């Protein structure tokens, strides 16, 4: 294997070396939560091994976006990796060994720092040769200007310029016309994958896959119903994993459905026995944005210092619908809706501010929320321009609202200590906790 290919796998190999012992450890000493944690880690390991195998053996594989339907990729039996996941996990930027190195690399790119750091980091990883170069690439044009620009820059890079790319183009509105338009693009995506990988789509296999992911989504919804209870059963990691589990390799695998059953059962038990993962909960927070890389530090402090619990967040909130599998058309329409209306960021960032009002209103009411925190990632400029609408919605609901202003990737922008200070001042001023 040439040097470039080897380098493109280096972070994945590093992460594999880190997670494989964790798998063994969890098997030996599962503890109270091991049965829920093990499948998540195993999934990462399996995903990475698959990518390594593809690169080493010259097999076809794709790079994709988290919004592109995994059901289609699974049913077409093609391996893929999400390069945004590389950013959060395999790059080590998730608070790991390479965080500062990657940020410094991104700073040297000649891209102004008011540009979303996730985009700058993602581009740095590409320039540094840390993404495996796929057979073909599934991009997307939303939910924000920087994502569209990022993919354009991706395809401009000399090593990627000749990689075939398909980008579905989510419409701004969400009516029937929009759904039909996007469903047609999902079909175009299938044709594109066939053209470049030789893999075809078997509709029966797609139906089976969707029916299985439907079960997962139904259980995720059930789990989120249980999260309404106070105290909330779990801290933030497991709820976030709900999104990860269904949207990565192995979608449609009954093993994953079992994981959702287990998490529901665990939550039910904790509620029944009044034994939440994190006890002494006093403040129920709705975290309305994606989580910073350094979220673990913030949440541990929040829980211990204030008894604050993330009762709901943008990523684990689940406005999904189950897909009607009765016809081919209904499946593609359902997959289209799931892809451009329901997923995190595409749901909130793309489209009218009504989505924001709906989310806040429903979640504050359903989850007995004490306060809404809008972290305000510096890249989410459309959301920043909706912050007054969020504030007004919270005012009408009678729930305090805090807009922090941080960088989910770069802890130097607003440090963890500054974030803690802002939250403490807010809680104190609002008489919470």
């Amino acid at each position, binding site marked *: 294997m040439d040097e470039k290919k080897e380098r493109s796998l280096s972070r994945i190999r590093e992460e594999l070396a880190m997670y494989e012992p964790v798998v063994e450890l969890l098997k030996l000493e599962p503890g109270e939560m091991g049965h829920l944690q093990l499948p998540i880690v195993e999934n990462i390991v399996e995903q990475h091994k698959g990518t390594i195998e593809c690169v080493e053996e010259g097999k076809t594989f794709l790079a994709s976006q988290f919004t592109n339907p995994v059901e289609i990729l699974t049913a077409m039996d093609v391996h893929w990796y999400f390069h945004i996941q590389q950013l959060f996990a395999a790059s080590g930027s998730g608070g790991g060994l390479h965080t500062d190195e990657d940020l410094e690399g991104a700073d040297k790119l000649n891209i102004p720092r008011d540009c979303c750091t996730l985009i700058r980091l993602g581009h740095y990883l590409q320039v540094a040769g840390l993404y495996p170069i796929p057979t073909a690439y599934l991009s997307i*044009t939303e939910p924000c200007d920087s994502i569209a620009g*990022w993919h354009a820059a991706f395809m401009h890079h000399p090593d990627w310029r000749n990689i075939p790319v398909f980008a579905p183009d989510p419409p701004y509105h969400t009516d029937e016309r929009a759904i039909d338009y996007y469903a047609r693009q999902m079909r175009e995506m299938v044709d594109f994958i066939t053209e470049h990988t030789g893999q075809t789509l078997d509709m029966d296999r797609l139906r089976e896959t969707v029916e299985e992911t439907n079960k997962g989504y139904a259980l995720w919804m059930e789990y989120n119903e249980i999260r309404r209870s106070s105290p909330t059963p779990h801290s933030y990691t497991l709820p976030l994993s709900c999104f990860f589990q269904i949207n990565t390799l192995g979608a449609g695998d009954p093993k994953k459905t079992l994981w959702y059953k287990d998490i529901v059962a665990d939550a039910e038990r904790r509620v029944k026995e009044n034994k939440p993962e994190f006890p002494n909960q006093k403040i129920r927070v709705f975290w309305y944005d994606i989580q910073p890389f350094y979220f673990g530090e913030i949440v541990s402090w929040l829980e211990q210092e204030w008894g604050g619990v993330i009762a709901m967040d943008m990523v684990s909130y689940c406005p999904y619908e189950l897909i009607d599998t009765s016809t081919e058309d209904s499946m593609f329409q359902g997959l289209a809706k799931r892809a451009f209306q329901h997923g995190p960021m595409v749901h909130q960032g793309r489209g009218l501010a009504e989505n924001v009002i709906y989310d806040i209103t429903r979640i504050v009411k359903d989850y007995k929320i004490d306060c809404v925190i809008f972290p305000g990632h510096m890249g989410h400029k459309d959301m920043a321009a909706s912050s007054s*609408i969020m504030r007004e919605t919270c005012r009408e609901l009678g729930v305090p609202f805090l807009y922090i202003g941080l960088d989910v990737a770069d802890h130097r922008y607003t440090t963890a200590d500054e974030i803690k200070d802002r939250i403490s001042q807010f809680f104190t001023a609002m008489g919470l906790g």
Partner: protein
Amino acid sequence: METNIKSKTLDEFKTITGTMINPAVQEWKDNGGKVIGYFCCNIPDEVMTAAGILPLRLRGTGSTGTELSDAFYSSINCSFPRHVFNMALNHEFDILDGLIVPNSCDHIRRIYDNWLRQLDIGFLEMFNLPRKVEEPQVQWYKDEVHLLVEKLEKQFGVEITEEKLKNAIKLHNENRRLLKQIYELRKVDNPPITGGQMIAVIVAGTAIPRDKYNEMLKELLEDLKGAEGIKDHRARLMVLGGILDDPEYMDILEDQGGLVVTDSICFGTRLFWTEVSEEGDPYEAIARYQIQQRPTCPRSYGDQPKRAQYLLDMIKEFKVDGVIGERLLFCDSWVVEHYMNDQDLKEAGVPFLKLDREYILSGKGQLRTRVQAFLEMLGGK
């Protein structure tokens, strides 16, 4: 840098550009006409003309602050919508009978949401733009134009026939042809008009009735044909970027000795370099023009190689010595585009200067210094 040109029409263009609600808009309104505001190049303003409504492209010209709009926008938002929305909250756009906002960028699209909640306006429409430039997007845009026509007809009690739409296309195409004729004059060694003057001409065209504009352009062309060309420039520049509507910005570049001879900006060639087809279905023609035929900005996905070629063609046609890439702070579309432009221009051996700015001109001293240094690097006279 000034030309020796004596043109009453050019002075009139400057006056129109120097204010938002110019006398022609007021006169139109006083005569019972309707006015619809809009943003960006990708709104089909021919439709408003066909409806007998004056399309007025909104700017923040004359804005002195963002005290009111800062409550609705954040410090990480572009200053253009903040100034425009501030003017709206100050009731400086109360003259409007309607507003059409496209989802052209993350900052502008939120004007729709905030306007909806803070201000009363009879007609407020979000125009749903696709990002890609392929056939399904042409059809999507065509449907959007149909929907817009239906809504305008209902709201304003007008009938927008295909014939009216075709006539509007012809009128707007005439705008485009006349502007292109002026640009032809800028290709020569000693162009008769500066970049600052040109921007005043173009901006004015988005703020007055288009038939009146055509007459004024014809007068200007006559004046320019007899004018003496500019000889004292050190280098020929192209300006590349987004919403730049302030002639003074160009004046500063040109005061240092650079003569702006062409551009690819929102109030520049991207508005008129190609024409809408006057044959066949006018809805289809407008859609194809907007999605595939007009020079695009970075919001259009998959079109970067074509944009890069357009840039190189312009450089060659206008004998450009160096390119200035301007960008409004916090604009993520142009940040990535300029990153790619930087690489493409380096490969082509064309000097490129990137300049970030706020919408309302500030930091003039710094701007002068950077442009001076760039011109020196170009090795001008």
